[in-house]
């Protein structure tokens, strides 16, 4: 199902864990499948000196988290902000079509952690994370194709972007 690179990152995930007193924390959840990812950053001289992750999710979600931390580690903040979901999926040499949405979680969590760092630096108070629901609705209330993550019409049974058939309820 998964290629060798993905399986290697799943079996031996890099940079797992928590950074105590992190400079930035990003936490995102996928409302569709319940996956959750947290990214911790240690920033020195506007560079990502250290990065760690925790993920509740499938093989693909874990591999994406691991690869993302490898790509981001050591990068200046400005560069890290440019990391996209596609970069992570490409570095993993591809993900199954229906797992591409997992890669979004990674980049979203990183960008959120960087935002958190910048907010703290600017003196903004860190918002309390909502605990009871566990997952933040990263895409708002709209419907997105689970295969390619393009916005789709409520109730549609076909994704016009990637031509996948969809279940009726989304």
């Amino acid at each position: 199902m998964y290629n060798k690179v993905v399986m290697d990152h799943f079996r031996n995930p890099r940079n797992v864990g928590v950074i105590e007193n992190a400079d930035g924390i990003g936490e995102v959840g996928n409302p569709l499948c319940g996956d959750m990812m947290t990214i911790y950053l240690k920033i020195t001289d506007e560079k990502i000196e250290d990065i760690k992750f925790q993920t509740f999710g499938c093989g693909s979600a874990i591999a994406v988290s691991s690869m993302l931390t490898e790509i981001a580690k050591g990068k200046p903040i400005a560069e890290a902000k440019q990391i996209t979901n596609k970069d992570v999926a490409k570095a993993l040499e591809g993900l199954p079509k229906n797992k591409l949405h997992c890669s979004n979680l990674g980049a979203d969590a990183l960008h959120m952690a960087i935002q958190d760092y910048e907010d703290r630096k600017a003196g903004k108070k860190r918002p309390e994370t909502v605990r009871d629901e566990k997952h933040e609705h990263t895409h708002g209330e709209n419907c997105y194709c689970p295969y390619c993550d393009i916005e789709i019409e409520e109730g549609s049974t076909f994704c016009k972007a990637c031509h996948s058939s969809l279940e009726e309820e989304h």
Partner: protein
Amino acid sequence: MKIINLDQISSKPLLAEVKAAMIDALNKDYHNPSSQHKSGEAAAEALEKARNSVSELINAAMPKEVVLCSGGTESINHAIKGVALANADKGKHIVTSNIEHNAVIKSLKRLQSMGYKVTSVSVDTKGRVNPREVADAISDTTILVSIMHSNNETGTIQPIEEIAEIAHEKKVIFHTDAVDSVGMVPIDVQKMGVDLLSFSANTFHGPAGTGGLYIRRGTRVFPLLDGGVQKGNKRAGTENLIGIIGMGTAAAVTRQNLDKWSAHCLSLKNKLLKELPDTIDHYIINTHPEHSLPNMVSVSIQFVEGESVMLMLDDQDIAVSTRSACATGSLRASHVLISLGLSHADAQGTLVLSFGKDNTAEEITAFLVALKNAVATLRDISPLYQKTSQG
């Protein structure tokens, strides 16, 4: 390398006797069973022998009440659409439950798009239907009640005799999807009082692509496939004779060994349930403690995701099934688990473990060791577990 197969519900391996019977049948170069010459008659004889054997496994009053087909999906489509079309003059209302297989759900959705109405009853936290809810759901226009015998995700068995009686009191046809039950628990269609019962041969060590629909004599059902006059006009098309012979052999061997195999599976299930608390914490058993298949356990392991557990066990050559949304094509949480009241996060960590006659106690021990390691590794990575352990 031997794989420990704890995913027997997906398909049970062919019996040696079944393979031998199918190879023998291939070598006999059977003709079309509908042909009237000698070669055709020999084929028809082999076909009827297989049908007899299958009808004995479910204790049908007459072999001709069994329509042999391509498996569970066809059988269920035939039952539901066949009853709906044949009885539309009486009404267009059907009663079912929230935890049925997709073959039932999607057949009913198709009928709903054609103007039929469906009422779906809920289940309790172990997946059982309350027969009184079925009784309340039946109206003057109800033509069919379809409730599964055992659930393919939890193994929970429904009070079928009671529900069949309720349906009959109200003169409504009753169908049960018994795909995961036939070959694992004794099935007696006469005692159960069902009008239609669906089954598939690959759940009793027969070939995939074969199965059947029991139709009690006198039940109004249209065929799904129209064409020739095979099987008394109940299913047109030249029969898959090699497969059917395999199914007949599987049914005969299973019938002889049912009690023994069932008791063996139950001992493995009991061992697993007894030793699980010493292996992991924070889990939910979704299978009914009493009314469930002897060979199935559904367990939701909290703070981990099922596909990851499945991949780690696969690395140890242990095959299990997961009901995590991530592992399904639709990427949605299982409707069965959500109907039991599980949260999306808990549903994500669900493993379905199913045993067969060839599994051993040592394999269960090996599984528990591997499970403990996989869960510990994944919880180390999981942000949810850390939050919980911190209180």
